[in-house]
């Protein structure tokens, strides 16, 4: 894998998975835009990514992310990842449950001049809410 893929891996594992927020300055473009289904608005620039990661890590202080697979195509890198963490802080208005959760997701990064210019993430928000007990894990049958 090339430099872009290595950068995408570092964003997931080191920024979101270890709380190294300073790394956003090195890897995220100043005008970068990120899209996350769990965020109410686009994520803007290094500070936006740091705030997003901080939000998740406040809710899951022991959060770790593992990269499962990467596919690179030109300026684009697709990364399939697994996140694991214990819910110890407020998340989407849900009070801490102490439950450990495991979710998967896929992020596609577009790289320009060595930094991420735009990023699209889809992750298992429903699965997380089910694991936290906020949504039934199975439909009740009559």
């Amino acid at each position, binding site marked *: 894998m090339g430099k872009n893929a290595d950068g995408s891996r570092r964003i997931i594992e080191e920024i979101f998975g270890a709380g190294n927020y300073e790394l956003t300055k090195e890897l995220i473009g100043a005008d970068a835009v990120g899209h996350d289904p769990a965020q109410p608005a686009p994520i803007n620039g290094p500070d936006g990514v740091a705030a997003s990661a901080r939000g998740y890590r406040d809710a899951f202080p022991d959060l770790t992310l593992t990269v499962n697979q990467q596919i690179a195509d030109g300026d684009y890198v697709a990364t399939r990842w697994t996140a*694991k963490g*214990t819910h110890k802080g407020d998340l989407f208005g849900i009070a801490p449950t*102490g439950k*450990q959760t495991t*979710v998967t997701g896929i992020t596609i990064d577009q790289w320009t001049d060595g930094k991420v210019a735009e990023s699209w993430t889809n992750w298992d928000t429903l*699965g997380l809410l*089910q*694991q936290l007990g906020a949504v039934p894990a199975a439909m009740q049958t009559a």
Partner: protein
Amino acid sequence: MPLEFPTPDHMPCPDCGASVPVAAEEAHECDDERQLDFRLVELGPDIARFDDDLAAWLDTPDGRFACFMAQYDR
């Protein structure tokens, strides 16, 4: 093939909160430390309510008198 309501690959153990694979073949064993942490978080709202109630009571005449007596008896 009919689509089914989605279910996660992992679910938290109801006793200790650990994330356990739903399809795991081996039985899950709870870790004592995690179980204690999990219970403390579960009881967090009750503990906070008790602290608030105690603080409010300590601010009443009865509470202040109890504090005085506790210090006097020490």
